[in-house]
């Protein structure tokens, strides 16, 4: 991004552009960190009050554990050079002492930014497995996802692994005679962050089974959340945090990035709006009522869906992605809940998994692509989606990413939870579930006289 770096004025050897980028990255990281209370409020609000302390505790602890382990090992495992599949331990207990500003911003700022992303992936799972999972099992899980599951698949794309250059075609050479390198597009992590959390959660929800009373005589029962006002607050907080999540993922604010971050903010906002309105309208038609809970989920679906393509599509494309995601969301919730009978109390699988997958795939449809000057002087569009003449190529790359990462996350989650079930136990006893995890697991209730 900063091709003319050397000419930039410096203070004590640090360019002003580095300061600008670092501020941007830190503010974005803080906003993403602030998504934690967003998740906490959504998950607490959409579940019952007898389990509120438990869900809040889980949200607190996955961020806590993620912060420590990702700093210690996860970051290295994800961004350490390593090979196409895993990073290495070169960044273990990250503390380089002297900052290299290697990527145009402080190395420490990068760690902070990546840490809050890892914690986001972890926190999604608690929603899908809410109201019945042992707290001790959840702690172990938090460790494993930020140590291994998330860093490995993260490495595949963002860490320079195999997915990041899957689209490279030896016959397409750039002006310098090098093959033009591109691959699976997931700008800020629809798949890498959100779906990973969701597919692990899916494995967990399947292995756990539904909450007591959720399915009676083969019929799904509604178990309404105890405080949708908190849930709504959480969604607004998440929406706000997403302006750190997506625009921050540009990792710079200088040069062309000044425009890019603003445009990403716009696509992010339009898709969220599209998701909310589509979900509202579809729910209105299907259930005769514009329901708040589904509209809130719809906004989140729009946000998750645009995360992959926010820098690759036009504002109109973003709006369409949001509308599609919001529409699918309603059906997805219904199918998972009522047909597949997988009990996902807060709809995390639909919001983060299904919408994440769809959004990632839609990049293969709506991506504008970028022009590259080839060795022979002609220009070629790479990474363009279906409707911009890219054919099925980018769609194929997107599918490769969605499915390989999805499989990795689901299988890891499945094994992890099976092992936990066999050893520590995964689900609380019937009595604890009945009376609430708060009293029995934490010895504390959230609402008191």
């Amino acid at each position, binding site marked *: 991004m900063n091709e003319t770096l050397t000419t930039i004025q410096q203070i004590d050897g640090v360019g002003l552009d580095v300061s600008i980028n670092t501020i941007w990255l830190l503010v974005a990281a803080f906003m993403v960190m602030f998504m934690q209370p967003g998740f906490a409020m959504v998950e607490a609000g959409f579940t019952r009050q007898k389990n509120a302390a438990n869900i809040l505790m889980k949200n607190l602890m996955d961020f806590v554990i993620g912060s420590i382990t990702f700093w210690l090992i996860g970051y290295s495992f994800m961004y350490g050079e390593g090979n196409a599949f895993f990073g290495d331990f070169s960044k273990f207990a990250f503390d380089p002492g002297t900052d290299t500003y290697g990527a145009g911003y402080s190395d420490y700022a990068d760690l902070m930014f990546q840490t809050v992303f890892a914690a986001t992936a972890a926190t999604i799972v608690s929603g899908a497995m809410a109201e019945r999972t042992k707290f001790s099992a959840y702690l172990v899980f938090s460790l494993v996802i930020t140590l291994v599951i998330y860093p490995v698949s993260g490495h595949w794309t963002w860490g320079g692994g195999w997915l990041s250059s899957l689209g490279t075609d030896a016959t397409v050479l750039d002006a310098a005679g090098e093959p033009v390198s591109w691959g699976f597009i997931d700008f800020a992590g629809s798949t890498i962050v959100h779906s990973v959390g969701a597919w692990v959660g899916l494995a967990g929800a399947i292995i756990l089974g539904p909450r007591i009373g959720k399915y009676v005589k083969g019929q799904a*029962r*509604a*178990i309404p959340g105890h405080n949708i006002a908190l849930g709504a607050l959480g969604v607004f907080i998440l929406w706000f945090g997403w302006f750190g999540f997506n625009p921050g993922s540009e990792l710079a604010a200088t040069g062309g990035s000044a425009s890019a971050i603003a445009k990403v903010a716009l696509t992010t906002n339009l898709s969220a709006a599209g998701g909310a309105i589509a979900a509202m309208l579809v729910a209105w038609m299907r*259930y005769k009522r514009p329901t708040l809970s589904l509209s809130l989920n719809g906004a989140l679906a729009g946000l998750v869906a645009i995360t992959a393509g926010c820098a690759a599509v036009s504002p109109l494309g973003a709006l369409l992605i949001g509308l599609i995601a919001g529409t699918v969301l309603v059906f997805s919730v219904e199918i998972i*809940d009522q047909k597949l009978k997988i009990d996902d109390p807060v709809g995390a699988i639909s919001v983060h998994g299904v919408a994440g997958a769809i959004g990632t795939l839609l990049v293969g449809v709506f991506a504008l692509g970028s022009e590259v000057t080839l060795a022979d002087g002609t220009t070629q569009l790479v990474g363009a989606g279906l409707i911009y003449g890219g054919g099925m190529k980018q769609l194929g790359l997107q599918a490769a990413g969605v499915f390989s990462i999805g499989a990795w996350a689901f299988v890891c989650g499945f094994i992890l939870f099976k092992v936990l079930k066999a050893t520590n136990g995964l689900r609380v006893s019937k009595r604890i579930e009945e009376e609430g995890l708060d009293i029995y697991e934490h010895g504390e209730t959230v609402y008191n006289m």
Partner: protein
Amino acid sequence: MKKVEAIIRKTKFDDVKEALHEAGIEFFSFWEVRGVGKATEARIYRGIKYDTSSIERILITIYMRDQFLDPTIKAIMKAANTGSIGDGKIFVSELQDAYRIRTGEQGDKSLYIEE
């Protein structure tokens, strides 16, 4: 002594309170309840219908000496009435004994303050 329980609309609470005071009722207790009745408005939570008919009401409980029963009933009937479905009901039952914790007074005496 009698126990009177009245289930009324929330929006009629202030009116009923005033009417009770006028009828000489100085003390009562109340709390929020939900009522299930004939109204069957569907609620939908994330695509599933549920709880098809509960509405929010206030339950007022008054323990009183026998002579207050009639004026109390009348007062509530008048103040809580809108004429539309959902106005609520009044229930009367026998109260066997009563005590005032502060003074240890028992029976009728515990239900009023001598001046």
